C-alpha cells in the first residue's frame, strides 16, 4: 500500500506555550517525511529589545519562555558583562547558580510528566507534576515568584537568599530527592518502558554533530558537551558535579540523562547554599561602552546564546537570541523518519521542545477521508504501551 497521508500537527492549542506546526507525511503506519513551520509565536523580541534600555531588555527576554525565565536573563546579562568586562560579586554568582539549577529541576520534572502522559503512564504524569511543587515553592521563597522571577540584573542579582530561608529550602529539597529516587526506580526499572523507548528515535553521534545538537539531546548521543563545564560561568567552576553522557541516542537515553541530571542539580544547589560567601550581590555597573559580547548558558534544554552589540547608547544596537530548541528542532528529520506514528509523539517530545504542540494533532487519511484528532495520536501511543504491558503480563 503506498497511500501517503499528511498529518498536520498544530499550530494552536490552549495548552501550548509555543505554537508550532508539524506536517508528518505517513505511508500506512510509517513516517516518511517531516516538515515544520514555526513563527506563530514570533513576537519580534529582538527588534523590541533594540528599542529598550539594557535593564528593560532583561525583563523582555525573561518573557521569551515561561520555563526558561531564569536562563535568558542570565545569558543576556552575561553578554552585557562581556562587552563591558563588569565584575559580578561572588555571592551573586552563587545565587545565579541556584536559580539555574532550580529551573533545570522543574523543567526536567515537567518534561518527565508529559513524556509519561504520552506513553500512557498517567501516574508518572501526576507524580512528576506533584513532585515539581517543592521546587516552585523554593522559587517562591527565594525570588517571590513561581515563574518569571525578575531575579537577575546586569552586574548581579536583585534579591539575596535570606539565611533563615535556607533550612526551609533544604527541607523541601530533601522531600524532592526522596520522591525523585522513587520516580527514578519506577521509570528505570520498568521493563515495559525499556521495550517502549529503547532503540526508538535514535539520533546518531554524527547527525548530532552535524545539526549542532545541544544539551540533553546531544549528551544522550554521546557528545560530551555542557556549557556549565566548557564555558564556566556563575559558580559552576567552584563546585563538584558531573556531566551525564550516554551513548545510545534513543528516547530512553534522553530520559535517563534528564533524570540523572536532576540528582546533579540537587547536589549543586546544596553545595551552593553551603559554600555561598557573604558579601554584596550587585556591583551596580553604570555605563555600557561600545562593543560586542556573547553570553552563553546551559538552559535545561541546552545552550542558550545571546549576542549583543552596543553602540554606547542606553539600548542595544543588536540583540540576537538563539534558544536551544532552535538547534535541536531540525534533528527531527533524522529521528522521526522511518519510525511508526505511534512512536512519533514521544520522539517529537524527546528533545523537550516547547512541548504541548504535540497535544493538538489531526490525522487526515486521504484514502477514506477519515479525520482523527489529537487524542487519537496519543491513544495510538498509549495503546502500543498497553500491548507491551500485556505481553509482559502473559509471559
Amino acid at each position: 500500500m503506498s497511500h501517503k497521508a499528511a498529518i498536520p500537527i498544530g499550530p494552536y492549542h490552549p495548552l501550548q506555550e509555543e505554537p508550532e506546526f508539524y506536517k508528518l507525511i505517513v505511508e500506512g503506519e510509517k513516517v516518511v517525511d517531516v516538515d515544520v513551520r514555526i513563527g506563530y509565536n514570533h513576537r519580534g523580541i529582538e527588534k523590541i529589545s533594540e528599542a529598550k534600555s539594557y535593564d528593560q531588555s532583561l525583563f523582555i527576554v525573561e518573557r521569551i519562555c515561561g520555563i526558561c525565565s531564569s536562563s535568558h536573563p542570565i545569558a543576556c546579562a552575561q553578554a552585557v558583562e562581556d562587552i563591558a568586562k563588569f565584575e559580578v560579586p561572588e555571592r551573586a554568582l552563587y545565587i545565579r547558580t541556584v536559580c539555574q539549577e532550580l529551573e533545570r529541576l522543574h523543567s526536567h520534572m515537567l518534561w518527565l510528566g508529559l513524556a509519561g502522559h504520552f506513553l500512557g503512564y498517567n501516574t508518572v504524569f501526576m507524580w512528576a507534576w506533584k513532585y515539581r511543587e517543592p521546587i516552585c515553592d523554593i522559587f517562591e521563597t527565594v525570588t517571590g515568584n513561581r515563574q518569571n522571577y525578575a531575579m537577575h540584573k546586569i552586574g548581579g542579582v536583585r534579591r539575596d537568599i535570606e539565611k533563615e530561608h535556607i533550612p526551609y529550602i533544604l527541607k523541601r529539597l530533601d522531600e524532592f530527592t526522596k520522591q525523585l529516587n522513587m520516580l527514578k526506580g519506577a521509570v528505570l526499572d520498568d521493563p515495559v518502558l525499556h521495550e517502549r523507548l529503547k532503540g526508538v528515535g535514535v539520533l546518531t553521534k554524527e547527525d548530532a554533530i552535524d545539526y549542532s545538537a545541544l544539551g540533553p539531546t546531544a549528551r544522550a548521543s554521546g557528545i560530551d558537551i555542557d556549557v556549565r563545564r566548557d564555558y564556566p560561568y556563575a559558580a559552576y567552576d567552584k563546585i563538584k558535579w558531573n556531566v551525564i553522557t550516554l551513548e545510545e541516542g534513543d528516547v530512553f537515553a534522553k530520559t535517563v540523562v534528564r533524570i540523572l541530571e536532576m540528582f546533579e542539580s540537587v547536589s549543586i544547589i546544596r553545595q551552593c547554599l553551603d559554600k555561598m560567601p557573604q558579601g554584596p550581590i550587585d556591583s551596580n555597573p553604570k555605563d555600557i561602552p561600545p562593543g560586542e559580547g556573547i553570553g552563553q548558558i546551559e538552559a535545561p534544554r541546552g545552550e542558550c546564546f545571546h549576542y549583543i552589540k552596543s553602540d554606547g547608547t542606553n539600548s542595544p544596537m543588536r540583540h540576537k537570541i538563539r534558544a536551544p530548541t532552535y538547534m535541536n528542532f531540525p534533528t527531527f528529520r533524522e529521528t522521526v523518519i522511518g519510525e511508526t506514528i505511534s512512536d512519533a509523539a514521544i520522539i517529537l517530545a524527546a528533545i523537550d521542545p516547547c512541548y504541548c504542540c504535540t497535544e493538538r494533532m489531526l490525522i487526515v487519511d486521504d484514502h477514506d477521508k477519515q479525520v482523527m484528532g489529537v487524542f487519537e495520536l496519543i491513544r495510538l501511543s498509549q495503546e502500543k504501551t498497553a500491548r507491551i504491558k500485556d505481553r509482559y503480563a502473559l509471559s
Partner: protein
Amino acid sequence: MTIDEIIKNISDRFQSKILNINKSSQKRAYLDIYPKDITEIARYIFKDMGFRFNTASGVDDFDALEILYHFSHDRSGIVISLRAMIKDRQDPHIDTITTITRSAWWIERELHELFGIEFNGNSDLRPLLLPDDWPKGVYPMRKDFPQPKRDSRR
C-alpha cells in the same frame, strides 16, 4: 588549544583572507573576512578544527549588512565569530554554509526573511518566522524598518 593558537592556525592557513582580528578576551575573537570566502573558512573551522556552529546573527550597520557566524570550541571554551560585511544593500547575497552543516538550515531562512539576504546554493529559503502573506521586500530587522514605539508613559 588557547585562543592565540586557534587564531594563528586560522590566519596561517588563510593569510590575506582574514582582514582583521579582534581578540576581545581570552575566550572570544572576531575575525573579519570577505563574504566570498565564507564557505572555505567555515568548512575548515567546522570540519577540520571541530568547532560547533552556534548561530549566525545579522546586523544592519546602516552602510552594510554584516553576518556574524559564531562557532564555539567546546573543549577549550572559546568562541570565534566570523564577520562577513555585505556592502550591497540592494541585492545582498552570500554563499550558503548549509552544505557544510545542516545546523545552518534554519538560521539562513531566518536571515533571508528578516534581512533580505540571499544565500547562493540554498534551495530552501521559505519563510520561517514571518507569516506567509508578509509583503515582499520588507525586512523587519533592518534599521530602516520603524522601531517599535516606546511606551509614552515612561
